[in-house]
């Protein structure tokens, strides 16, 4: 029988994109959040360049409000794979007075990341930032190119994007511009989970069902934590939950789940009818929320 284990259209496409980045740009960086999508990116990058090391560093924009499990995981992964990791902190941007901490019921550091990210891009003169965004996540993302050009101010001009034909990726830019690259643009949430299962990729424990102190608000499950604003009358309860995305603690909601291993998680996603971003509190603020943030330079 013919061995076709390397024939996975999405994987081949992602590997192709990684190689284009390495060849077309001087200073690429992989934006690493510690979430499953960026962990998947790391695996794909390894495959793209084996037996050489991944020819660019990872960068984490740390809101300071991450799940401790994610940070532990990040540091271990970087060490095991011998990768270079850059960390830039939102707290520093706050201390420097560049951004102001949000307050109140829906306060989150999620949107503050943009400033820290743009500063870091300038500091290191990165010309390509690789991210794990997928077009199926959200309507505005469905229009992103695989190579999306950002201007000097990190802004996205969604009406004036370069057409992408066949496999050809045009990464030509001017000094000061940079390109956001999305190697897993065409993957769905289920594709990512199935890949993690097939490749036996390790992911942070919070993706699996665990007992957690939570409270309910607006039909969403919030983590009880110092970082999350909570009203007096919002009662803390303990339940089995897991996370479908892991962003900042203040903007990531959990789902009730008993799925404690990868195959039951994949099964649950297969059966589920709530889209992944339904669990991202920041998108609920308004239907056009994501698009507005993207225009301002959010990832």
């Amino acid at each position: 029988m013919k061995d076709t284990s390397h024939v996975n259209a999405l994987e081949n496409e992602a590997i192709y994109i990684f190689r284009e980045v390495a060849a077309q740009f001087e200073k690429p960086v992989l934006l690493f959040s510690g979430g499953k999508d960026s962990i998947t990116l790391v695996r794909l990058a390894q495959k793209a360049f084996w037996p050489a090391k991944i020819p660019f560093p990872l960068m984490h924009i740390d809101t300071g409000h991450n799940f401790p499990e994610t940070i532990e995981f990040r540091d271990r992964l970087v060490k095991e794979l011998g990768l270079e990791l850059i960390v830039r902190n939102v707290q520093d941007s706050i201390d420097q007075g560049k951004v102001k901490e949000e307050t109140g019921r829906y306060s989150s550091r999620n949107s503050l990341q943009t400033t820290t990210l743009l500063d870091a891009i300038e500091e290191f003169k990165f010309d390509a930032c690789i991210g794990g965004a997928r077009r199926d996540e959200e309507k505005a993302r469905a229009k992103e190119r695989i190579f999306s050009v950002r201007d000097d101010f990190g802004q996205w001009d969604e009406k004036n994007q370069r057409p992408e034909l066949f496999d050809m990726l045009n990464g030509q830019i001017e000094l000061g511009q940079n390109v956001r690259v999305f190697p897993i643009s065409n993957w769905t949430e289920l594709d990512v989970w199935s890949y993690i299962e097939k490749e036996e990729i390790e992911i942070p424990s919070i993706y699996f069902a665990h007992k957690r102190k939570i409270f309910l608000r607006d039909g969403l499950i919030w983590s009880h934590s110092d970082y999350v604003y909570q009203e007096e009358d919002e009662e803390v309860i303990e339940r089995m939950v897991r996370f479908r995305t892991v962003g900042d603690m203040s903007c990531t909601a959990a789902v009730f789940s008993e799925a404690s291993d990868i195959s039951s998680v994949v099964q649950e996603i297969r059966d589920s009818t709530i889209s992944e971003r339904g669990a991202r509190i920041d998108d609920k603020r308004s239907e056009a929320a994501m698009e507005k943030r993207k225009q301002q330079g959010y990832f």
Partner: protein
Amino acid sequence: MEVLKIATAGSVDDGKSTLIGRILYDTKSLTTDKLEAIEKTSKQKGYDYLDFSLATDGLVAEREQGITIDVAHIYFSTAKKSYIIADTPGHVEYTRNMVTGASTSQAAIILIDARKGVIEQTNRHFFINNLLRVKEVVVAINKMDLVDYSEETYNAIKADFEELMSKRDYENQNITFIPVSALKGDNVVNTTDKMPWYKGGTILEHLEALDLAAVSNAGTPRFPVQYVIRPKTDEFHDFRGFAGKVYGGELSVGDAVVALPSQTKSKIKDIYFNDKKFQTASRRSSVTITLEDEINVSRGDMLVKADDLPTIDKQFTATISWMDSQKLAAGNKYVIQHGVNKVLAKVDCVHHRINPDYSGIDESIDALGMNDIAKVTFKLNKPIFFDAFKNHRTNGSFILIDSQSNNTVGAGFIQE
């Protein structure tokens, strides 16, 4: 999992968004929160049915104007296949988006409003999908509910469309006609009892039955080198791997190959995918190839089988689709990106432009504007290694880049 990419084409209000929304709804691909958002917005707008078009219309500006203005990608899957729909607009000035969408698709759905029949724009939709050699075309004759599901209407439209087909260049394109109502869901995913005279399958049944290997255009194997992997570690001290994607056909260990442009001969030693060795690299796989001999190969070079060389030339003629507001004229210089190879090019001659209504050609034109499709000869500063587009969809296509703005300003399909 197999992935089928589909481009859609239709004029404004033919029901493209409704059709896509209907497909998502009937394949249970709409999530609860999306469905709720659609129900809520439909109600706000005072509709008495669900406006499925809301499932796809992405950007704020579009929601305001109520039309789709760019390429959006929609994902759904069945037990058999994963589907990616590139939703491309039908608006007159957006030929470029349709060309873009069709370039990455193996199938296309062309929509026709049964009340209007074949109109000028249908011509364009068909022409572009034929020009880009999209293998499978479904002609969905929509809004059948508004013409009493009439067989005569369907047959008349079909006959008109077949008239267009008689002029086509790419004759091996498979064309299937299906009468549907996107709004009511007839013949989209589910069958219907409204049109007993129609004996064929639904749109989804048709797509499900497509054999992916057969719909993606084969050719001879071409291996453009993207990147050279040199680990320079103790363990892999002498490793020189050529990383790239295989197009057109397969390559196997032991194949006699020639590296272009140097024309140096060698043999394939190993084929790696990640750290595993394979005997054969399949079409469209991203592999790393090592050669028996130490020869000089760098990005932009190409490995091909020794007995099957492409054309190597500093000049070629192509059909181009112009996508920029700045005009293309003889004497202009551009960067041509052919696969992963870049060369400088000068427009030698604009031979003719295809009339916007596809009625014929206009030889008097010497500058091209946005959305024009024309026959152009280019001269290059160094040779490239190409095949005619009709023989090789990948190695016969290129993009034009404006070296001032860095924008992608056109796409080309090499004739000779």
